[in-house]
């Protein structure tokens, strides 16, 4: 009898390990943005190639507005391929990805776009008004705008495939008019 009791000793570690494992299920609470649920501020900029970039033109589509900069390392470098990949995947389905480059030099922006092979419209917010309108505090910040022009999600930090797909799929399922 006594000989078997001793094998309970290793089991003493189990409750503690279980508690620590439980810690993985608990996720830190995200702090939502006050802008969510409001209409997305309009803007009319020019892309790096010189074409006009107007938010109003894309009414009825799901718009992903991504604020970035070439000096924003590492996050912007991590999300650039994600944005390009998903842009190519979703562009035929009524989704537009728009890049707004803030506080950057034109050459650096062009190099960034070239290095990552970005094909979605990218414009520089030279006056800084668009970032102020959107309450952009840092980069990268990505705003997901629904078909009715309302901001539905603000993502701070590098956008991931999961976040992009989950949000855009959800917004695509909604109707364009109320």
């Amino acid at each position: 009898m006594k000989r078997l009791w001793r094998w309970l000793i290793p089991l003493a570690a189990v409750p503690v390990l279980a508690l620590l494992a439980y810690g993985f299920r608990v996720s830190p609470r995200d702090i939502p943005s006050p802008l969510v649920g409001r209409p997305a501020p309009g803007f009319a900029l020019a892309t790096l190639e010189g074409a006009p970039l107007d938010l109003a033109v894309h009414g009825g589509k799901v718009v992903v507005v991504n604020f970035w900069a070439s000096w924003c390392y590492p996050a912007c470098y991590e999300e650039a391929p994600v944005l390009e990949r998903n842009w190519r995947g979703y562009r035929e389905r009524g989704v537009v990805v728009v890049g707004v480059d803030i506080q950057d030099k034109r050459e650096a922006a062009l190099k960034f776009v070239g290095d990552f092979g970005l094909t979605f419209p990218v414009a520089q917010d030279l006056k800084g008004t668009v970032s102020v309108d959107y309450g952009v505090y840092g980069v990268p910040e990505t705003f997901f705008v629904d078909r009715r022009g309302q901001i539905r999600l603000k993502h701070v930090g590098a956008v991931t495939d999961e976040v992009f797909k989950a949000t855009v799929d959800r917004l695509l399922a909604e109707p364009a008019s109320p």
Partner: protein
Amino acid sequence: MTADLGYGMTIVALGLALYGGVSAGVGARTGRLALIESAQHAALGVFVLVTSCFALLTYAFLTFDFSVRYVATNTNLGTPFYYRITGVWGALEGSIILWSWMLALYTVILIVRHRVGARELYPWALATMLGILAFFLLVMTVAAPPFQRQVPVPADGRGLNPLLEDTGMITHPVALYLGFTGLTVPFAFAMAALITGRVGDTWLVLTRRWTIVAWYFLSLGLLIGGWWSYHVLGWGGYWAWDPVENAAFMPWLTATAFLHSVMIQERRRMLRLWNISLVILTFGLTLFGTFLTRSGVIASVHAFTQGSIGILFLSFLALVLLTALGLVAWRWEALRSEGELDSVLSRESAFLLNNVLLVAAAFTVFFGTVFPLLSEAARGVKVSVGAPFFNQINVPLFLSLVFLMGVGPLIAWRRASLDNLKRNFLWPVALGILAAALAFALGVRSLLAALTFATTVFVAVTIAVDFTRATRARLRVGESLLPAMGGLLVRHNRRYGGFVVHLGILIVALGVMGSHAWSVQTETTLHRGETAELAGYRFRFDGLTAVEESNHFKVVGTFTVSNGRVLGVLQPAKKFYPQEQAPIAYVDYRLGLREDIYLVLGDFARDGSQATIKLQVNRLVSWIWIGGVVLTLGALLAILPERHKSA
């Protein structure tokens, strides 16, 4: 190219470590020396590879090689030279490489020291060390690779967290990690003892010096951390019971307990099970600490980012604990003690009580640290316990421990007679009570302060009593005073080294008590030319200036301090780093034996006409650092090789 080379070396090192661990284990089992030697070569190879990785990474830092992602994240073109070196271990991946390097170093030292003379235990200890090293190399390869390529290469990196641009950054992690990794060796020998069944004194004697060295580095790391916190972070504190701080403190507590309980096992052949359990617990807490800082499971200001690394660490912790405890269960019979406790009033009892109190303190800290998890798991409500919880419970425990510091070394073994008690403790107790009365007479009203005075004087007198008595014995034999005293220190260096360490702890205790009981602070806004007053000091705001540095610019406030006569000028600053979201405050201070003056610049008007400052007058904090120095000297004395061994 650099990234690929580094990554390749990491993988080879991992393979070698795995091979070495298995080889040593099989060699130990079958007795084939050739396998053990092969494992030794593998260990040496791992050390060379990890050193090369470290050197390569440092080189990448020094040459601004932004093609390596880790370099781009932790440095930028403005980072000063020396911080480019220390920045190597400034973030997660680098910390793992530092840890691995130290483990590899300790493994090589273990080989050199114990290859001959620890026939039975050595191969298994080597196998254990290599196994643990392999795990950290696995983490380096899979979860936190320092050599990831960054494509496209950015023109400039992100930069080191400015809070890390401090001399504390150079020493604190190094000391702390030397302590943590050092504690792996006693654990490895404990595993060897369990596996071979040789659970007697052999493994203890072998690991004695390792334990003291590791304990010393851990103490040093904690003290430097406190100092860094005090003079950089701007809240005038040196300890916050933050989960990451607690993670380093818990193994220190159990390691201290182990340091003491080994003396009982050496003398009386008791507490075998207790000692083995303590070593396993200490190593487990070390792993828990690294898990805590890197998994994001408990929120902390220190924590690194999360990821798959948490799961890896938890799995390894589970493996280690279950294996070790399983071995304990297996060797249960052999671990039963030979000796028995004779009396409550004995040295064995005092040491045992010391251990119980230290483990109780460690448990309290652990409980408080994981409490948020516990409450959420149990009731779905997220609750944490703050500093008051830890202070409330630990203060009585620590005060009792200080008291035991005086009792333990003097009380007799086995059973202390009344006569023995009187002879040893009459003066210390009397003077201790006198000290408390004196403090009361001088105006001290805090019970805690009075008790602290009484206890520290009690312990100091016991040390004096012991030293005087021993010196007198030598004088009687014919030695002259100074050689007698010096001889004592050298011949019985473990004992007197211990006494010096205890003295250091006493000084730290007084410093902690003083800073808690008598520090004052205030916050105020001053126009230029206006003066603030605190604790007899006057602070006049003279103005603001702006200075541009290589990778930041700073706003400096100038304040003239006087207490009747002008003492000097304090210049707290705020540094603005381009890559940081907010400015970082830099404290200015005047350190003193009795009190420190501490000034933080808060808000300021753009035109320099007004500034908001936080003022502190902290009492006796310097004693903490002084106590730390004394502790260092004591530990060094204790580590000295023993010339003439006394039983």
